[in-house]
């Protein structure tokens, strides 16, 4: 790495990920994706296109889905981050979504799955009974080359139904 850049000081930030506080010292240009994967070893968040087109690296920051490959880690300082690994003390809604994805055949190679599941968590938090069109809109930023999406949409419908019948989360 060229010398001028190497001399730029690292910054200390607080990353609150899945309910765990992490003090990390990072170069300011590091993306949230890099820091999650490389510094915090949270490899569930996937690195794919690197330019915000595929959605595989989606995590929630203060409840909103973002492409962590385009999001600087410093921006996430002191915010609440949720990744596919989930909170240490569990998250019933996340687990139901995962369960629905498993049972409905929404998972093949699994590379898009963490992003899809996380985006669904955000969708169902805001819209507990989404229409089919709302589900498609919520997942439009997520590529899946394996499934053709049908079983993914069915999984989201199933999760919404299950969570609804349980009185929501």
């Amino acid at each position, binding site marked *: *790495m*060229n010398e001028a850049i190497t001399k730029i000081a690292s910054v200390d930030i607080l990353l609150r990920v899945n309910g765990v506080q992490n003090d990390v010292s990072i170069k300011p240009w590091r993306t949230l994706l890099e820091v999650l*994967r490389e510094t915090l*070893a*949270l*490899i*569930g*968040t*996937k*690195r*794919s*296109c*690197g*330019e915000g*087109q*595929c959605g*595989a690296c989606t995590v929630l920051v203060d409840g909103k889905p973002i492409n962590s490959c385009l999001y600087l880690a410093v921006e996430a300082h002191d915010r609440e981050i949720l*990744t*596919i*690994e*989930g909170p240490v003390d569990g998250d019933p809604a996340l687990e139901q979504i*995962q*369960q629905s*994805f*498993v*049972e*409905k*055949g929404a*998972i*093949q*190679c*699994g*590379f*898009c*799955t*963490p992003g899809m*599941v996380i985006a669904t968590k955000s969708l169902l938090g805001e819209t507990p009974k989404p229409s*089919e069109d709302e*589900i*498609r*809109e919520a*997942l*439009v930023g*997520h*590529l*899946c*080359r*394996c*499934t*053709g*999406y*049908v*079983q*993914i*949409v*069915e999984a989201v419908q199933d999760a919404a139904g299950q969570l609804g019948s349980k009185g929501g989360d």
Partner: protein
Amino acid sequence: MNEELQSEYHVIGRPTPKKDAWLKAQGRAEYADDIVMPGMLHGKLLRSPHPHARIVSIDTNRAEALPGVRAVVTGADFPGHKYGNLPNTRDYLPLAIDTVRYLGEEVAAVAAIDEDTAEDALDLIEVEYEPLPAVFDPEEAMDSDAPQLHESAERNISAQTAFEFGDFDAGIAKAEYVREDVFETQPVKHGMLEPHASVGLWDSSGKVTLWSCKMSPYVVWRQLAMGLGIDLGNVRIVQTFVGGGFSGGKQEAMPIDFCAVMLSKKTGRPVKLVHTMDEVMTIGHMRHPMKIWLRTGTDKNGRILAQHCKLTANGGAYSSIGGFSIFLAGAMLNIPYRVPSVKYEAYRIYTNNGFCGALRGHTNTQICFARDSQLELIAADLGIDSIEIRHRNAIQPGDETPNGFRIGTFAFDECIDKVVELSDWRAKHGTLPKYRGIGFGCGSHISGARLMGHSASAAEIRVQEDGTVQLTTGSTDVGQGADTVLSMIAAEVLGVEVDDVRFARVDTDSTPVDPGTFGSRVTFFTGNAVKQAAEDARQQIAEMAAERLNAAPTDLMFRGREIINRRNADQRIALKDAVRWGAFQKGRVVAGRGSYAAGDETIDVKTGRGNLSPAYNPSACAVEVEVDPATGQVTIVGFWGADDSGFPINPLAVKGQVIGATVMSFGHALYEGLIRIDGKVMNPSFRDYKMPLTTDIPKLADFQHQNVITVEPEGPYGAKEAGQGAGTGVIAAIANAIYDAIGLRFTRLPMTSEATMQELQRLENQGQAPVE
């Protein structure tokens, strides 16, 4: 009969969630890029900026001097052995030595303490090139004065195939109707979300290990040994989870793999390399763009008498599996329609583009687009109903095709009728409002191929003292569900649950050797091997249980994790107790073995004659589209498909395979395609290379597929192919639907909004308004 069969099984036929789905749902599946090893370095590849050039010199001194850089490799670090897929087309090198043949070809690689440093070091490698004239169009490349890419390939012919089945001259002479058309297809990428990634380790004993996302690890195993010039026994490939493959680079050893291990040799450290998506989209492996000339003769009732196909494939700079690609295209002219005489002449041409190989459907996809588009034109010319012409020509079970395919189960007529019913075809065809249309398309595929190389599969099963089953095969799960289907087969035979079976990923040091995952072969070939291995294990356990129960082994049945005497149901023993007793008291290891080779016959590649596959499946579909006259955009508003995948072992997975293949074809038909100018890929990004999104598929209620169930006697529990065939007829169906909607006949892919607009405007200028 089918319901009866279903009830006869306790595992087979039950929609079963994928075994690794929980792991993947929680983000805990470890892909190659997720691997971290102590001391691991990170590598990057330097690529040629020229489509064709001689490498005059490479100076790596400045790169090596950069702090953090640990090693640089170039072609000179390798022994200069060419490697490849087919024995007569080995033209790959681990890194270019004196010539680069396409823009993006790998020239050098760096290992450094992190990716940024490795990337920076690439800029410090000084390569002097002498640009050479380049050629990008296959027809130009065949000119005698065109620049020649490979010394051995005159007129840049990378591979050629010609064959004739039946009496073509007599067939075409008898024809009462003849037409010829030319169809063109585009370069399509696999579009898997996981870029190629590898970790290489060359240890001090000389053992070379590669952890990588491979679909066919044993192909990589041989190629790596070949290109490194070392003994096969010193190479070990460990398959990681595969984040989508669809064939291509995950089938073969790539420069990224060679560089990972060679950089490790130089540094003594494990080295990881991961392609960026820009690299994935730029480099080789893609579907062959083709120009297909198709001449078909029929009688006045539309019965095909003769078909002549001339085909030119733009192969790009290297062979990959291209020799087989053009062979297969010709072979697939023989199904799913009866074609009494076939003539085929095909050329695969080297050009200075990224190279082509296999992609889901292989070259069958292009052939099906051409054939079913033309069939619709023939039907229209002869005034024959679209459905009727397909029925009249449909291959029937028990047929033998002119090239020697022996057709077993083949419910093609039933698939066609099922689609007519599901789509409400009769009410819709020709009656939909302006700008809305419906089209029909058919396809077919093989259940694995018997080739002259490695075709057979093997499986091993151990049953442990806790009643769990360790299943090892050389086949890979790449998301398609092999882990689950193969485990279901083992569970069915041994009377245990799917969860009791542990499915191993491939490790060439311990799993049985196998060709890998391609050609829709795994359920069929490996499935049969697994069934046999499980039966072998069951026999071994039955003998132990019989001794323990004082019963005859043949009287014992395996159900619900128990072994029960059929003659006296009170006599029973838990499976695990029988295994434990055998191990503790007799020292017996339950180790079942099975294999499947689909008979001894192999296909003669020169004549093209022979029974390529042990089973064939037909598929049919109807697609309804709406064309926006203001933008030319084609929206798929309905899809109804049916295929004969034999008896679906796991209906949940079959559904995923069929729909996945279908939607991939939507993209291929309507928008996917690399845009290349003078060999440079102009859209090497998912931003500009558009693939189908959630909003591009029909509503669930209008997206239907049904299996027409047959029980294929040769298949494991009656199963056949499922992952590719269903997508093959889709592109023609879309083209036919667009024709029905606006009277526009596309013969060139993709059928983009721009192309539709241009054609609509042309028609308008000519005073031909779209059809009502």
